[in-house]
């Protein structure tokens, strides 16, 4: 089926969940609390690093309504983690970050639990905290995880015992030393920013029940019901068949709910009260600090180049401030290494990406998964190179843009599915009026400047990442698709709906996608993350449609008395391709066909589809060589901002993104993802970051002080799609959910640096930071 004959793809029907979401009627996890639910409350550490001297639970345990009070001592051997089990559910012996849970009470009501938690008496002996990766790596630094060697972990994670390195990923491609030695131009710079938070609209919540049948059921605001099931099995020592995870729609995840967060502790508490659900819910403040956020970064980048701008080599050091526990961050740093150069042709690469323990709140997956970090570092370094060469930064990127036939840092070949980066750069330049000039002083003294950055990302997924789908029919001939994908705001379902409608040639109004995932009922799906849900669940859905169509034809061929291969399915019917009037409605076949005399044949049609990542391999521990990336989505983005040089105040006026997405399935959903990503990137670059006091306590752990970009402050957005087909994607589509955020900090830093006349190396870019930098630069 040729692209231009698409009937439903490329349409933008209204989201099916729009009325419920905007009308406040949708039931999220915390809207499903049954009568009889017990409520848990937690005590959080006020110290970033301390020995726990004592935890006295006696007064709390005796408080009205309290069923139990617990500390780390209640689970002395349990360790939870994704790739490495390093985190106790409640702190034992030491606390390693401000906000770490230290004690829990479970009571009949939320009010009683909150009143009782205040009666827990915990005393600490403060220890000096480690406040940055370099501090943690300095000789003689305290080792935050002395038991690092004994932690259960997957083989791909390589911690360095006796240090604070949770994982080191090495890339050694070509001959970087030689390239640097002979290069005519070498630039180098250091770039950094502190950790921050996802700030999703819905704070995390988990409701766990240990049934009297010995099965554990967890309803959670999770992006990964099957992931949670597996990790609970490992962490709690229960087989998967005794664990059920239910995933209602989620009010924003952004990666923060892609791993395992409140579920283990909720389950451990529930197991103390068989037959009673136990609810564990975050306040906003706890959601920001106690549950994981995103990592910080310290980095150094060197680039070697020819005088005409051709890049010869890159030497990259990325130190991820992963905070107190490894969680997802050990894979985030690995993913950053895989993509470390950015979407450019770099024949020689030396890179080390380290995931480093500090006493900061710990980090998990965040939209971009390490790519914002690597991109910020390399895009800033490229700007130093452009400066050095006197070259337009966009021209430098065009010159070096990766193309099919080039290799990634891990030596994987970019195949014909690779997107068209130069086309994306050209579109962004056009939107910003790049060639009209990049810097202009306005009559009122303000300075307008433009910045542009490029990005790429392949999903950082296990080599065996999978998706399943089933398709069934109702009496009215409508189809329902079931997958393991979670609705986290991205509207994947409406994309899947169009894919199924297109494949069945059925009106989308007759296609429904099951909105909730439940490990007892949904086909297996790795996780709703990594911008792969539409790709993989889409492929699985196509498989399910194909299977269902074959079954429909098989059953229909009997009453229609024809060979199956002469039949076509479309417009709600099964009919002879060469004589369309001769056929049957799907509703007469999908649940079995009944002859006039009552004989029935067939039975419910159940289409089954599945997909598993193709051709992925692990990485060589010494050189990083391998093919971990499934498909690369590339693009460019840029901004124009206006700076007031008197006080450093500025506004982003325009923000443009052009991305090669293969095929746009649902344009308004796709646009929504890119605009949302740009907005989130502006927040990331300009204000969203934790600030710490001298003892590494978080000072802005509430939305009063941790500011997000608001409507009214946002720029004019421009979105363009390039459609170089992804051969193995559904209808040629490739993933696009995350990528729009990745280049924003680099683009904003480039524009702000140009406006201010000084290269900026830190985030967030606040007016005071600009003002101070400009003053330092003035002679």
């Amino acid at each position, binding site marked *: 089926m040729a692209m231009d004959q698409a009937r439903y793809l490329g349409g933008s029907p209204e989201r099916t969940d729009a009325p419920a979401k905007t009308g406040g009627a949708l039931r999220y996890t915390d809207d499903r609390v049954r009568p009889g639910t017990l409520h848990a409350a937690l005590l959080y550490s006020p110290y970033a690093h301390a020995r726990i001297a004592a935890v006295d639970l006696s007064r709390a345990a005796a408080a009205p309504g309290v069923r139990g009070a617990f500390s780390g001592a209640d689970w002395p051997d349990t360790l939870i983690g994704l790739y490495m089990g390093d985190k106790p559910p409640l702190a034992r012996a030491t606390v390693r970050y401000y906000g770490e849970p230290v004690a829990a009470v479970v009571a009949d009501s*939320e*009010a*009683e639990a*909150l*009143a009782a938690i*205040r009666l827990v008496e915990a005393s600490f002996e403060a220890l000096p905290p480690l406040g940055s990766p370099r501090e943690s790596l300095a000789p003689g630094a305290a080792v935050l995880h002395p038991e690092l060697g004994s932690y259960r972990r997957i083989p791909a994670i390589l911690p360095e015992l006796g240090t604070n390195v949770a994982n080191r990923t090495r890339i050694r491609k070509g001959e970087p030393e030689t390239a640097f030695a002979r290069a005519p131009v070498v630039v180098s710079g250091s770039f950094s920013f502190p950790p921050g938070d996802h700030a999703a609209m819905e704070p995390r919540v988990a409701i766990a029940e240990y049934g009297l049948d010995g099965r554990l059921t967890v309803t959670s605001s999770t992006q990964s019901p099957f992931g949670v099931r597996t990790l609970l099995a490992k962490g709690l020592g229960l087989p998967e068949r005794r664990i059920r995870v239910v995933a209602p729609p989620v009010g924003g995840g952004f990666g923060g709910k892609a791993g395992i967060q409140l579920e283990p502790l909720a389950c451990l508490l529930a197991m103390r009260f068989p037959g009673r659900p136990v609810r564990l819910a975050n*306040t906003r*403040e706890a959601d920001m600090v106690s549950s994981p956020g995103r990592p910080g970064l310290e980095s150094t980048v060197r680039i070697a180049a020819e005088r005409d701008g051709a890049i010869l080599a890159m030497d990259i050091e990325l130190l991820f401030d992963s905070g107190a526990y490894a969680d997802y961050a050990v894979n985030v740093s690995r993913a950053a290494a895989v993509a470390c150069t950015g979407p450019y042709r770099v024949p020689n690469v030396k890179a080390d990406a380290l995931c480093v323990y500090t006493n900061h709140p710990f980090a998990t997956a965040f939209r971009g998964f390490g790519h914002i970090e690597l991109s910020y570092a390399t895009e800033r370094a490229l700007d130093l190179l452009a400066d050095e060469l006197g070259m337009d930064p966009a021209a430098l990127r065009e010159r070096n843009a990766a193309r099919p036939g080039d290799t990634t840092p891990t030596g994987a070949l970019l195949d014909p599915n690779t997107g068209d980066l130069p086309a994306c750069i050209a579109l962004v330049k056009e939107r910003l009026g790049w060639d009209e000039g990049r810097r202009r002083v306005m009559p009122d003294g303000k300075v307008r400047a433009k910045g542009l950055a490029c990005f790429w990302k392949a999903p950082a997924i296990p080599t065996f990442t999978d998706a399943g789908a089933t398709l069934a029919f109702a009496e009215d001939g409508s189809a329902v698709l079931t997958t393991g994908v979670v609705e986290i705001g991205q509207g994947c379902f409406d994309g899947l709906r169009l894919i199924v409608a297109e494949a069945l040639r059925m009106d989308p109004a007759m296609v429904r996608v099951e909105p909730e995932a439940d490990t007892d009922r949904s086909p297996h799906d790795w996780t709703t993350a990594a911008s792969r849900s539409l790709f993989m669940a889409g492929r699985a859905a196509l498989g399910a449609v194909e299977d269902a169509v074959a079954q429909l034809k098989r059953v229909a061929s009997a009453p229609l008395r024809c060979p199956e291969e002469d039949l076509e399915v479309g417009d709600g019917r099964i009919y002879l391709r060469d004589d369309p009037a001769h056929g049957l409605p799907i509703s007469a076949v999908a649940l079995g066909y009944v002859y006039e005399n009552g004989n029935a044949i067939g039975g419910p049609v159940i289409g089954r589809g599945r997909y598993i990542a193709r051709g992925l391999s692990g990485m060589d521990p010494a050189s990083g060589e391998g093919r971990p990336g499934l498909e690369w989505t590339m693009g460019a983005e840029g901004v124009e901002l206006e700076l007031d040089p*008197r*006080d450093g*105040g500025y506004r982003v006026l325009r923000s443009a993104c052009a991305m090669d997405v293969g095929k746009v399935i649902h344009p308004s959903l796709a646009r929504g993802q890119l605009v949302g990503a740009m907005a989130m990137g502006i927040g990331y670059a*300009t*204000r969203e970051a934790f*600030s710490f*006091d001298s003892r590494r306590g978080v*000072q*802005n752990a*509430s939305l*009063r*002080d941790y*500011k997000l*970009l*608001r409507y*009214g*402050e946002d720029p004019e957005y421009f979105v363009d799609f390039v459609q170089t087909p992804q051969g193995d994607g559904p209808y040629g589509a490739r993933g696009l959910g995350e990528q729009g955020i990745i280049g924003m900090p680099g683009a904003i830093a480039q524009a702000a640096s140009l406006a201010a006349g000084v290269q900026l190396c830190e985030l967030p870019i*606040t*007016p*005071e930071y600009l*003002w*101070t930098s400009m003053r330092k630069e003035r002679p």
Partner: protein
Amino acid sequence: MIPGDIVYLKPESAEEAVAAWTLAAEAASGAASAAGEPSAAGAAGPRYLAGGTEILTTARRSAAYAVGALVDVKGVPEARASGGLPASLAGAAWLGGAEAAGDATASGAATAAGEPGAADGFYFGAALPLAELEDGRLFPLLSDAARGVADRTTRNRLSLGGNVAGQLPYREAVLPLLAAGALGYSALPADASAAAGSEARLVRWDLRARFDKRLALLPGELLLGFSVPKAAAEARAAYVRRTRTGPIDYSLITLCALRTRGGAAWALGGAFPYPARSDEADRALSEALAASGEARTRALGRAAAALGEPRSDPRASGEYRAALIALALETAAEELS
């Protein structure tokens, strides 16, 4: 959720409100002594409730901020009035007697007509939401100051009185009132010597005289509202606000200034842990307006210096605030000229 046993009271007059407060305070101190605990001020005692944003957010965060009884003042007519002075307040006595009245005249709180408390000004009830002050333009500088605080949804709840008498350091709504030399009105629990049957005294006072870093209200004192002389409300004004990031954020500096007969009056928020003003600072700004070029710049420098060095905190350094103040004073001088 805020755990605790909270009593909610909704009086319909200032007298009822003060009486309710007094009763609740007595009950709380009785309970406290029965429990053998010292009855610290505010310990599970009553609080006046208008918008409730500060009570809610502080009680959520800190177990030490106890809430025993909430006396909702949104039904008190004087607290919701705006425009003309409510008739009941026309006869309000001067807090502190004739002395205070004299002071009020001296500090310039007198109206253009020269009579302290003359009813030719505009009155703003303490329970009015900032959103209403923002929309009504009786006193444009107050509308500007109100609009700068938080966001519109929150301003639908934030009250003038809560903002002026609250615990946060910003309290931006008080800045135009200080600049204008406003009068305040409140209800106090009755004296023992008061006529039988009267539950409260209505009093008026000079805001500047009672405001030294904060408005020190007496226990049980119910803030009813403020009046501003018409001349001040209609005078040329300047308003500058700067934040750390975008417009919806706490203030790094907020400057409110008004043209007066003698030159100018101004007040500064955000730069210190309290709103600040002084007669010396007003004099220096007045001198600046009368001067130009280098002399103006020097006078503006003196105006800033009169209030002291701004603070450094996680939001901004003192140095940056000082630079913002200098720029804001320049802007103010231009706008007032």
